[in-house]
């Protein structure tokens, strides 16, 4: 089982990313569960979401305590070490939206990936909404689902320009994410 923890801020589409990932995995015939933040939902406040993916049926229903992958959608949360490293597995992967590329040293003990999702979001969507570029980065870094599956489930959810722009954001996220540690 692969367990993913998403960090972001309320209003940034943290839940949407986790939902799309779970649906992409389900589309591939896998078992997956998306669990939204179990805390308060406020615009701008740190929020989290969880995704579990497995080849077998998933019975457990509690939040992810020991993630294999941590994705940090919001760049201003990238230095919240206690939050990001909380409970993560020894060989975990951390994927950061890091426009500056300047991150705490401890992160280099893990598989560390960086992407400038801020730039991608501005280029593709014209505004600082990073969730789909970070979903792309997750796919590019780990391959836990295929890019095609993500695009497929996006087609069911978005349409028109919103779909096209977000597809571009996902593609660029997948392409531009870089392993640094």
């Amino acid at each position, binding site marked *: 089982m692969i367990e993913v923890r998403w960090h972001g801020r309320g209003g940034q589409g943290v839940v949407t990313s986790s939902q799309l990932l779970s649906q992409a995995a389900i589309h591939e015939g896998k078992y997956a569960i998306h669990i939204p933040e179990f805390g308060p939902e406020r615009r701008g406040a740190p929020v989290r979401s969880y995704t579990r993916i497995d080849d077998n049926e998933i019975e457990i*229903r509690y939040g992810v305590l020991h993630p294999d992958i941590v994705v940090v959608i919001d760049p201003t949360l990238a230095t919240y070490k206690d939050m990001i490293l909380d409970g993560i597995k020894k060989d975990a992967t951390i994927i950061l939206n890091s426009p500056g590329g300047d991150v705490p040293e401890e992160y280099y003990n893990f598989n560390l990936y960086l992407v400038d999702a801020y730039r991608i979001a501005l280029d593709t969507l014209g505004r600082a909404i990073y969730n789909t570029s970070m979903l792309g980065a997750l796919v590019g870094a780990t391959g836990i689902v295929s890019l095609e599956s993500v695009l497929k489930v996006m087609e069911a959810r978005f349409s028109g320009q919103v779909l096209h722009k977000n597809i571009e954001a996902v593609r660029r996220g997948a392409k531009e994410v870089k392993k640094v540690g």
Partner: protein
Amino acid sequence: MSVTVRQVRTGLNGDEAVAYAVLHADVDVISAYPITPQTIIVERLSEFVYNGELDAEFIPVESEHSALSAALGASLAGARVFTATASQGLALMYEILYIVSSLRAPVVMALGNRAFSAPINIHCSHDDAYAARDAGWIQFFAETVQEAYDLTLIAFRVSEDERVLFPSIVNLDGFILTHSIEPLHVFSSKDDVSKFLPERDPVNAIDPDNPITYGPLALQNYYMEIKRQQAEALFNSKKIIDEVFDEYSEFSGRRYVPVKKLFVDDAETVFVLLGSTAGTMRHMVRKWRREGKKVGVVSLTLYRPFPEKEFVESVKDVENLVVMDRSFSYGSPGGQLYMDVSAALIRAGVSPRVLNVIYGLGGRDFTPDLAEKALEVATSTDVPLIWLGVRGD
């Protein structure tokens, strides 16, 4: 009936799954209050009605009290009726809950289980389900999003059966099921589902051309006989629920039973619970079995009428029983399920050591550490009641 009906594998959250079941049940009337603490079940349904997928009257009323009142009227007129609510909304329906069941009006309600205020909290507790436990409704508890879909279809079929004619509540844990996406199989169309759930054939529907009376006055002379009949009729509905579970199991290929059991046959300690925590508990029980600990788990898919016989049969030989309540009955010896279980055990003349565990109130996560703690208390102490994982303990 055999499994020849096509199903589609998809990913939905619990709210959407219930909405799909209601669409596939081809309901005639949806009556609901659309604002907090309502879930998005009715939001999806209003879309289905608006875009023409579902030919139904959608009545967006001004309160939950009105929602259930309108549902009652529509049901008595012979319609297939659905409503949904949660926590405070169920509380505001309270007066009408008893009237719907006493008038033997089939209505199906989805209840996204959420905590009662105060303090304000929108997350999972079973307060609302237990608040309705004495009101004469059939109550099902879903463990998964799949079960929320299936039990909604089952509930229509049970409630509308002329040997039953009681309303049903399908409980699904707030957020844990209502907002979580899981894979599930849904039927392809209303037509396919109609093979299991044909159009409603109402009994004594109200009709302006042939007036009949529902809900007349009955005082000291007859009230008690009528209530006795109601109590017996709800108990007797158990047999029909068993039948419908069997029929749906064959129709869908997914097995439904009132009492789900894992590893109870040789168990020394058995956990008893309702709702989505059953999956986590089965996971823990498998782990404990690998460690050589004789633990089992029982979860109730049917809560009202209480499946007393199957329940007692499944736990009669255990040493320790752990009854998990996601609510508390203030001023009582324990939680609500604990009191049901205790009464059933006394009647059966069996007396295991019983621990009542109060857990997960207001959405507090039920983690493996807490499960370990519950097992430890149950097997090493004679404490009758614990509030699991509470600060200061």
